[in-house]
């Protein structure tokens, strides 16, 4: 392997729902070796378990399969590999769907791999019998308090199974729940032959993965000095140019919009951060205070000197459980006196519900006056008493579905039986939706078996 070898790894999807143009333009508008795609949020796993329980062929990110249908010929022509956590709670069904699309494109001989072992839902009781407590990391509560309402349970796997899958020649690697930075670290481990003892290099790959895991949020999106960012419509999704020694450059394709600067990258380094000196993953503990960061050219930011230490003996586990119901709805109230009228509207709704014997505790109900300052409530300069119009946004929640459902039908009638100038009700009555609670816990790594499976189209 020549010392100068660098590998280009991009992330084209920051979350399920991100623009499909990100990955399409990444593979078309410049050179690339790996495309990573992040589809999973905590809430997604629970939704996918529900889909799978109704249909055993579902429970993965179907958007991923439609995307591949569009980009597969380019991937093969330019020899780009894909690593995606699109498998959700059903990686094998996702693999079958991908193989079908490959064959439809005449790409027989191409390989698809899945990483399995993260889904613990079926093994929870056996794991508890073996001594795993799954105590809530935040509240210290015992799992027994919600055990019968648990709807998904997944361990955040690391990057080594991804590297193993790439080592077996896979064009496409599909995982279930894993760490987000692992999608980027996996290809580096594969390309450069890093081992679990290469703490500093694994930490470097983790920092790189953290920077790009939210897509365009490191290349000009959601940036404080937004006026300085040009052409966000054609924003370039981020690319890591990784080197075998762990140093890397964050960049984007030439001619794309947005910007990669010291500031746009530092913004993203701060995102979803706890203690920056101890960023925990199953592969390594990365120190985000350890490295050098410098602008080395236009849209090029170099990071080197990242330090890491040995990982803990645990995987983090994310569980979801059914935690009651909620219902939220909106109406628009025009001026004059918009805020005063909107407050009257809210009071009418609560009073009418009470007339029907339906009262909600203060912590079970909310009213917001969007336009008068809801995001920056209580902050000087963040609120106004005289907005020209406001959106009245009301909601309730609680364990009783019938009581939560009673709220929706009392919002619409304000249009004809409230103060004048109430409008904007096009979406129908608000309906009760299930609240999905999260239960963060740990599980001993030695109790979890990961497996890599490869099939050929």
């Amino acid at each position: 392997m020549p010392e100068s070898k660098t590998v280009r790894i991009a992330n084209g999807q920051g979350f399920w729902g991100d623009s499909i143009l990100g990955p399409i333009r990444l593979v078309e508008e410049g050179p690339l070796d790996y495309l990573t795609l992040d589809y999973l949020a905590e809430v997604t796993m629970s939704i996918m378990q529900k889909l799978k329980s109704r249909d055993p062929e579902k429970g993965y990110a179907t958007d991923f399969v439609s995307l591949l249908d569009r980009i597969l010929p380019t991937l093969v022509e330019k020899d780009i590999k894909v690593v995606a956590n699109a498998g959700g709670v059903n990686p094998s069904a996702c693999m079958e769907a991908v193989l079908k699309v490959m064959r439809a494109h005449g790409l027989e001989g191409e390989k698809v791999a899945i990483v399995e072992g993260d889904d613990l839902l079926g093994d929870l009781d056996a794991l508890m019998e073996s001594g795993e407590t799954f105590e809530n990391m935040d509240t210290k509560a015992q799992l027994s308090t919600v055990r019968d309402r648990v709807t998904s349970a997944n361990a955040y796997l690391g990057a080594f199974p991804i590297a193993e899958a790439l080592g077996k020649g896979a064009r496409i690697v599909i995982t279930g729940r894993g760490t987000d930075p692992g999608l980027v670290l996996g290809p580096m481990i594969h390309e450069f032959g890093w081992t679990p003892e290469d703490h500093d290099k694994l930490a470097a790959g983790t920092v790189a993965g953290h920077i790009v895991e939210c897509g365009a949020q490191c290349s000009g999106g959601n940036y404080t000095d937004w006026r300085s960012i040009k052409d966000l419509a054609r924003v370039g999704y981020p690319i890591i140019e990784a080197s075998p020694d762990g140093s890397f450059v964050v960049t984007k394709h030439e001619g794309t919009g947005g910007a990669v600067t010291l500031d746009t990258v530092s913004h993203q380094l701060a995102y979803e951060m706890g203690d920056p000196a101890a960023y925990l993953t199953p592969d390594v503990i990365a120190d985000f205070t350890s490295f050098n960061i410098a602008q080395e050219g236009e849209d090029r930011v170099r990071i080197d000197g990242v330090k890491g230490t040995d990982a803990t003996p645990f995987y983090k586990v994310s569980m979801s459980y059914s935690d009651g119901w909620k219902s939220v709805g909106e109406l628009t109230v025009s001026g004059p006196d918009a805020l005063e009228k909107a407050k009257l509207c809210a009071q009418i709704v609560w009073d009418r519900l009470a007339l029907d014997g339906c009262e909600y505790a203060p912590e079970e109900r909310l009213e917001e006056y969007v336009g008068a300052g809801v995001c920056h409530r209580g902050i000087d300069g963040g609120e106004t008493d005289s907005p020209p119009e406001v959106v009245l946004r009301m909601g309730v929640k609680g364990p009783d579905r019938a009581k939560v459902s009673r709220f929706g039908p009392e919002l619409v009638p304000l249009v004809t039986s409230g103060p004048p100038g109430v409008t904007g009700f096009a979406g129908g009555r608000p309906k009760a939706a299930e609240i999905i609670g999260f239960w963060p816990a740990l599980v001993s790594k030695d109790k979890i078996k990961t497996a890599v499976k490869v099939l050929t189209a």
Partner: protein
Amino acid sequence: MPLAPLSTIAAARSGDKGEGSNVGVLAKSVAAYEFLKEQLTPEVVAAHMRGINAGGVQRYEADNLLLLNFILEDSLGGGGSASLLTDAQGKTHGLALLRLELDIPAELISEQEA
């Protein structure tokens, strides 16, 4: 000395962290960072954000990034899908903190205007 908003000498990014949020404050210069290390204490942040955050405030530092990272422990109305708030992810908390008015030395402000 007239008061000036924190946004004069710093930028910010925020997002959800369980039932709380984190606000990363990124100083625009080394001098601004040193000033903020002294002045932007967890107590100052907690007082400014009291309408948003019902819990405690923790602060972490990353000198290499000129970053002060604040954890607002109870700022999302329950967090995740249990929250009824418009900003259930704390996406706007960074800009809320940047509205904070501070006694900022004139040389730090002129440094930004230069």
